[in-house]
């Protein structure tokens, strides 16, 4: 029985429980110009608008197969075309359906069905054309790759093979067809590099430049001009010329280069990219059948892999939970923010001022007691605005608007009509309380007072105010313009209106907000510091730093422990560590080595050229019972599991999903770990340390 028949009987028997949003394949005859004959044009359309893009599940694939049956049975056609619905071509496999697969056999059936249907496009007895009119990802790109010719709209906002980002390979023909079309080097950019670089997407012109499409047309009459071009190809008026693909050394070099890149990023922690690399490496010598069969196997293995499950979990978090924060009050309670005050004019304050001005487009006033610092702060913002202008990111009008919005004041009187004032002054409770009291003397009773503290208690900071209910924590991650996470902290007396205003403001700043209880160091820092504490303990026991640095490689974290410490800065790491030590002395001992490092004024254990600074390393030496890499990692993970369990018990966040979201968005922790709790579950660490899994 063919895969197609197997699926038909599975579906007929009701053996597929997942509710699929079916992407229909509508076939319609098109009379091509210049007497080129009739094209059967297949439109992929799931019947919804662009906010619900076309995806491929079994039913949709079978509909496409039906369409191709219909087309293949005719002898009056000159060509077959495929296009999408407005703004969307197709964005790949139906991930919900993938998630519901239960065993490898089923997974392999999905892999084979995609191949068996898509490959028909390249094996009809008339030429096939893909008209990539809009967003195309994964299986959508592969549909196009199976066609003989491709046109692309210059308006395509995103084209990508994001499979490796999620934990899959582009295995419906992608790893075989793409390198053979555009060469291994370009193909690996799309298959490996972009997915591992925060899942970067190509725009239409970039995809065209890589050779993914034969010709590009403007969106205004993309389909008409694509059909005209197709007619010209069919009549011989246009000859499609493609660069010849080098299947010799260049191919192998490209694979080696990409392998080096993936290793550097992941240290083998995620299987998908390596599997994709193997497929591309071998694709140059394989027949189509061999290539597709190898893809089937890879997909079947990966679909059942825990890394993919974690990847899909993480994807769902950033796509859905990040947009609807758990525990946020009703957004109708939010008050409008028409002017913002920033207390302080240091680097952080200036960055915040720029962000607020750019995203909210409201006046932002910086205050400082020192005219020079104030000038410097405002000057920084204006300088950054000029940089944006110079890079063509904003227009000259936008630049003058932004500069006009950001001003400085020596007194807090300028805050009188502000709706939201955020402080970014020295991390000391007394200083912050004083600042808030001064601000309260000027502003309306409803004005939200936000603190960017990374470690101090929001409740305590509010405690001496007349209106403590207006105070929220608004914890950004550095660099604030880049990292998407915003921890929003509810103090004990914070009211819903202030909190709703904070969430609305965070959303307007284009940040993903997570609601956090007022607890020491909140979420990301507490977890990173617990990890650091465990690791520093092993260092002080005598484990060499280079061993420690390798110990977290199996996780594929963005940075090793001491590289991260260098980025954060030892002084800040120590300061937050001390806060946590004060709260939880047993679990967060203060590292003597770190204290010495700070006292020595060292920026870390690395020198700028990433070699170890022997003087700095020496500060940590003296222990006599070194651990192995495995032991270090085991202790670190045990510590994480314990800390997360305690945080959940304390109610720091609503659910383990929020912990993971914070780690993914605030610390760049990878999808294949699902943040961390799915990983702790699947490795048994959660159960061993806490007695239960984080997820049932």
């Amino acid at each position, binding site marked *: 029985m063919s895969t197609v028949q197997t699926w038909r009987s599975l579906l007929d028997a009701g053996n597929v429980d997942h509710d699929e949003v079916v992407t229909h394949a*509508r*076939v*319609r*005859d*098109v*009379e*091509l*110009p210049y007497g080129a004959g009739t094209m059967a*044009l*297949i*439109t992929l*359309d799931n*019947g919804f608008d662009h906010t619900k893009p076309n995806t491929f599940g079994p039913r949709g694939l079978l509909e496409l197969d039906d369409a191709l049956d219909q087309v293949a049975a005719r002898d009056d056609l000159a060509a077959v075309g495929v*296009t999408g619905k*407005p703004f969307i071509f197709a964005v790949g496999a139906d991930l919900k359906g993938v998630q519901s697969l239960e065993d490898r056999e089923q997974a392999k059936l999905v892999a084979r069905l995609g191949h068996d249907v898509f490959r028909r496009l390249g094996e009809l007895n008339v030429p096939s054309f893909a008209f990539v009119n809009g967003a195309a990802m994964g299986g959508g790109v592969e549909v196009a790759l199976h066609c003989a010719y491709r046109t692309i709209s210059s308006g395509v906002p995103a084209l990508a093979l994001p499979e490796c980002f999620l934990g899959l390979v582009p295995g419906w023909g992608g790893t075989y067809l793409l390198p053979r079309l555009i060469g291994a080097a370009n193909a690996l950019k799309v298959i490996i590099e972009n997915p591992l670089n925060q899942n970067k997407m190509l725009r239409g012109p970039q995809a065209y430049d890589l050779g993914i499409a034969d010709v590009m047309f*403007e969106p*205004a*009459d993309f*389909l*008409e001009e694509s*059909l*005209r071009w197709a007619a010209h190809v069919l009549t011989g008026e246009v000859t499609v010329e493609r660069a010849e693909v080098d299947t010799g050394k260049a191919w192998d070099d490209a694979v080696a280069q990409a392998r080096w890149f993936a290793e550097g990023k992941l240290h083998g922690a995620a299987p998908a990219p390596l599997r994709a690399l193997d497929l591309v490496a071998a694709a140059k010598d394989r027949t189509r059948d061999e290539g597709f069969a190898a893809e089937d196997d890879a997909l079947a293995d990966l679909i059942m892999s825990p890394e993919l499950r974690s990847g899909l979990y993480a994807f769902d978090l950033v796509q859905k939970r990040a947009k609807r924060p758990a525990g946020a009050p009703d957004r109708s309670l939010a008050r409008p923010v028409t002017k913002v005050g920033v207390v302080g004019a240091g680097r952080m304050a200036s960055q915040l001022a720029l962000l607020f001005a750019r995203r909210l487009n409201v006046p932002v006033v910086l205050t400082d007691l020192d005219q020079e610092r104030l000038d410097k702060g405002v000057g920084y913002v204006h300088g950054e605005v000029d940089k944006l202008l110079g890079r063509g990111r904003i227009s000259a009008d936008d630049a003058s608007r932004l500069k006009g919005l950001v001003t400085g004041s020596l007194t807090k009187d300028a805050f009188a009509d502000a709706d939201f004032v955020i402080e970014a002054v020295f991390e000391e409770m007394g200083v912050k309380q004083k600042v808030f009291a001064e601000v309260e003397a000027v502003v309306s009773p409803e004005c939200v007072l936000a603190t960017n503290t990374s470690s101090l208690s929001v409740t305590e900071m509010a405690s001496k105010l007349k209106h403590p209910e207006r105070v929220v924590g608004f914890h950004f991650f550095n660099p604030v313009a880049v990292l998407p996470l915003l921890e929003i902290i509810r103090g004990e007396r914070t009211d819903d209106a202030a909190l709703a205003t904070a969430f609305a403001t965070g959303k307007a700043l284009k940040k993903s907000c997570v609601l956090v209880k007022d607890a020491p160091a909140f979420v990301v820092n507490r977890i990173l510091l617990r990890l650091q504490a465990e690791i520093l303990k092993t260092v002080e026991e005598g484990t060499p730093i280079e061993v420690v640095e390798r110990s977290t490689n199996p996780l594929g974290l963005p940075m090793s422990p001491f590289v991260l410490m260098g980025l954060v800065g030892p002084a800040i790491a120590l300061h937050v560590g001390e806060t946590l030590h004060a709260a939880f002395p047993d679990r967060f001992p203060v590292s003597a080595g770190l204290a010495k490092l700070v006292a020595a004024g060292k920026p870390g254990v690395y020198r700028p050229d990433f070699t170890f600074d022997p003087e700095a390393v020496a500060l940590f030496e003296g222990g006599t019972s070194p651990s192995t890499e495995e032991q270090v990692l085991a202790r670190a993970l045990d510590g994480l599991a314990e800390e997360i369990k305690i945080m959940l018990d304390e109610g720091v966040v609503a659910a383990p999903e929020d912990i993971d979201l914070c780690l993914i968005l605030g610390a760049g922790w990878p999808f294949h770990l699902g943040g961390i709790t799915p990983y702790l579950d699947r490795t048994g660490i959660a159960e061993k340390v806490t007695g239960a899994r984080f997820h049932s």
Partner: protein
Amino acid sequence: MPRTARDVVFVDGVRTPFGKAGPKGLYAETRADDLVVRVIRELRRRNPSLPADRVDEVAIAATTQTGDQGLTIGRSAAVLAGLPKSVPGFAIDRMCAGAMTAVTTVAGGIAFGAYDVAIAGGVEHMGRHPMGEGVDPNPRFLAEKLVDPSALVMGSTAENLHDRYPHITRERADAYALRSQQKVAAAYEAGKIQPDLVPMAIRSQEKGYGLATRDEPPRPETTLEGLAGLKTPFRPHGHVTAGNAAGLNDGATGCIVAAEDVAAELGLTAKMRLVDYAFAGVEPEVMGVGPVPATEKLLARNSITMDDIGLIEINEAFAVQVLAFLDHFKIADDDARVNPWGGAIALGHPLASSGVRLMMQLARQFAERPDVRFGLTTMCVGMGMGGTVLWENPNFEGGK
């Protein structure tokens, strides 16, 4: 400052295939502005020697100027078509003569020296914008008997015309309509219509994307018997039927108009030279007779007679209205000079777009007929008007 009027030429014209209005029509799920955009882009493609920034104006007509025909459609379509933002545009309305008025208006501007090159055209998506959508006639029209109550119902004005000219019978109207269908079928067969059609992508949720490549309204299978059996929806036992009138249609047209010297400088073709134009008003309840006074005015002003006219493209809103014109000028119903490739009864009449269709067809015929010096495009207009444009054939070989 002394000023010399400049000669104005019709450079090139294209249109979308016309569709039938309504939920089953070609363009049921296609926007009106997209039709215009496609026309503008095709004009640019067909005339690559015209730098986009030399377009001084985009005048697009629509009778109903709301929704996808709103937002001052000449400007919005220009932006959507990718013309430089420096190119201005506007919307224009004279109901059925919208596109004709767009051409005469920019032509006036060119002759005056205000423009060198302009794009003019029209659109009507009667499926999305049925005739009379959103109108609010002033009650004084009826209270003071300024117009007859039938004046706003175009079919009724056609019945009124039969009353005024009792010798124009239903049989004559049907026979005229049949010939229009036959002439269009023959013109299609001979490939006369297709060169100026720009294929238009059409989408249907149910059927997917398609491509409109031919006019949808023509009914080459029409017979006299079939026509005779049609109902007369505007009057019991009346004369006007769906068969001897233009239908309700969707479509867009556009053309490039330029100063003759600028066209030469830019290497643009000059398919017709504009000689003069005239608009005239008549009683709104017999609006179909409008082309008669407009044409009379034009001929008189240019000291020529109908005998000097070699080709006439008259819009066929209703057969009776064409016949009234022919009778007035003593032209036979089947005179070969009149609509040689058929007319709106077969091709359709998306109101404000039709004026340029007449010009496109006349321009093609001029190219084939160097023996003809002058041609007319003429049409009747709702609210009681007529418009006529006199064109000279640059291919005319004189007495040779």
